[in-house]
């Protein structure tokens, strides 16, 4: 557990850099985390992040299949938005815990 400053705000993150408290999240924090990964967030990215946040809030397990069926973006598009980590990066930028899911 560590504290880091993202977009001028001090947030708590775990060893892998995932935010511990989803309520500390805002769009600027997401943008800064994405930038570290070399990703510039577009409106489409934010739509995915919002979907992940609301699904996670409901206590549902997140999978790329679920995102693919959300109507926001298909799985191919999801990979294009978050190269090399469609779920691990998107959930990180969404300020939610890393999904314990194999799909």
């Amino acid at each position, binding site marked *: 557990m560590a504290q880091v400053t993202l977009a001028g705000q001090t947030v708590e993150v775990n*060893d*892998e850099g995932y935010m511990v408290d989803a309520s500390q999240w805002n769009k600027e924090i997401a943008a800064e985390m994405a930038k570290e990964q070399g990703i510039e967030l577009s409106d489409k990215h934010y739509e995915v992040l919002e979907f992940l946040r609301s699904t996670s809030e409901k206590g549902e*397990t997140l*999978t*790329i*299949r*679920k995102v*693919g069926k959300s109507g926001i973006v*298909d*799985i*191919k598009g999801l*990979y294009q938005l978050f*190269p*090399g*980590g*469609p*779920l*691990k990066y998107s959930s990180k930028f969404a300020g939610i815990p890393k999904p314990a*899911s*194999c*799909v």
Partner: protein
Amino acid sequence: MANTETPLKKVCIIGAKGTIEDVYATLVMANGAVMEGIETKVFFTFFGLDAITKKQMNKIKTATIGNPAMRAPGGLPFPSILGMLPGVEAGVSAMMMKSMEKLDIPPVDEFLEMITAGGGEIYACKLAMDMFKLEKEDLWDEVKDVLTIGEFYAMCGGENTQIIFT
């Protein structure tokens, strides 16, 4: 996780068996690798070809005979003789697919689409194709190529590459 000094870069997975558990082991490992940004190549051979044969891919079954791990719901014993009865294998297999669907694990064709959507590549074994008298047209459309094992090995070079046989 934290120790990523030499992360895995590529996996070459060989799927040689055609039961639900074998095919899904292959698919889950392949999809999981793609999701982690690991280059992924999958080679289906022998009965594993069922997973990428249009006619068979969504009809795979689990063995209810000769499977000592087979148990009835609730962990009750499942005598092998029951597995011989008509419809039991189909019923058990349908139940397994249903419980996987609940965990958001897709049917075989959709699972393969997820893998290729992320850049994973699917190949078929030439020798097994000849043996089962299959043509490229019999295979799922997104199978990238039909290869000899030598050609597949040629794709499996490079640092931090692993070959996995399921």
